[in-house]
């Protein structure tokens, strides 16, 4: 039922932590590392700020993918924000794929402020992964009510 059409220009929401990944993205830009323009960056104070609902909501609002990136484990500006977050992320990723949402739809990574090149290659990888998926149709706001769905 899903059309298997290639998803050429996916929209990806990237939540980047202020202290590492956002700075990493900055560095990638300053250093002129090329990466695909599919990401829409949202700066967050720490990957620990991520409420799992942010990710789910991004998918609902039509994002084809979500990337959350923070400091490397142990390097968190707030000491342990990313470690606490990692447990949530592990559960969320498993849970969403259990419900039938593609594994690569939601991705997590660690990028430090000095890793501009890694940031660029990460984005390339993430975009490539998501391009292989069909356009996000599953959790997207459909404007279809439960009633239209058939069950009364």
């Amino acid at each position, binding site marked *: 039922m899903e059309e298997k059409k290639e998803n050429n220009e996916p929209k990806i929401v990237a939540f980047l932590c202020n202290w590492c990944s956002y700075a990493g993205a900055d560095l990638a830009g300053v250093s002129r590392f090329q990466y695909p323009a599919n990401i829409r960056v949202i700066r967050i104070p720490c990957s620990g700020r991520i409420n799992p609902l942010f990710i789910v909501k991004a998918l609902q609002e039509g994002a084809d993918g979500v990337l959350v990136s923070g400091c490397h484990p142990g390097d968190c500006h707030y000491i342990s924000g990313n470690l606490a977050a990692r*447990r949530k992320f592990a*559960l969320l990723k498993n849970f969403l794929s259990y419900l*039938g949402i593609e594994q690569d739809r939601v991705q997590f990574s660690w990028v430090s402020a000095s890793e501009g090149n890694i940031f660029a290659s990460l984005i390339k990888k993430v975009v490539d992964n998501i391009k292989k998926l069909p356009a996000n149709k599953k959790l997207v706001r459909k404007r279809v009510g439960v009633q239209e769905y058939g069950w009364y």
Partner: protein
Amino acid sequence: MGGTESIENKLKDAVKDLFLKKKVDIVIGFEKGSLPLTSRPCFIRSSDMAERLVWNASCTNNLAVYLPRFFQKVPRAKKSGTPPPVVGIVAKGCDARSVVGLIKEKQILKENVVIIGMSCQGVIDRRKIESFIDGSFIAGGRQEPGGILEITTGVGDKKKIKVSDVLAESCIECQYPHVENADVRIDGESITASDDGYKAIKAFEEKSPEERWQYFTDEISRCIRCYACRQACPNCYCKVCFAEQTLPRWIGPGDELSDVMIYHIGRIFHQAGRCVECNACVRACPVGIDLRLFTRKLCMDVKELFGYIPGLSIEELPPLLRFELNDNNDFITTG
């Protein structure tokens, strides 16, 4: 053999004793319900009220859901400094684990709760009984010694059904039927702990993502958004649920299917590391959504990833409040 009736008498005596010794102010237990083969929560406030208590396979509710309200400030409460009451609770294994969870989350005071630990023989699933009696309804019924239910059907037939044949799925799969931390213990026969290793969940995982999504969609599309699953859950004590928050408004109030899904994803995810698999949400659901298949996935993951089982110890920190530097990092995408 200790049938439910003798357990019931023991329970009554124990509760009376608690009142006589002034150890409790109130006891939450079960009384006979208004429909055949039902029991419902009741609040015992004196020793002579203890006669109302019943104990049988239809004592399905998780009574821990009532506990937080004894320790919360209610809008009309008197401002006097009366101390919170000591509350006794008739608890099955799952209820007791919920109590532990509530104590851990500081919703109730440990010293103000008296756990009356029952030996649980499992509870029935009414939907299963209904399937046993070929589309008729339960017009009457009672539980006989030896775990037999005698059911009168709508057409007047009498049928005997073994309790064990109509046990709720959660009881069949129950890993911890025993109340470990009981203050008062009512002994008797109980079901044996089973560990099926989350067979149903693993079987579901085997299906293709499309099939899984279809199943999830089919189930959730029946939701009428009454939020009974949330209200029946002892863990859902939030003053304002994310589903009803207005600033920001996470989900719209309409019949948008994705909103309903997000409600369920959100609610289930909030149970991560807290859900004791008591099945209260499933039972409360008036349209019979198979929530269990989804809630248990998180229980399984929490157990497998973090080795944590909710409700066993008060001291152990819940999994999402802890972390290790060498936690599972396999899911991380590297650049």
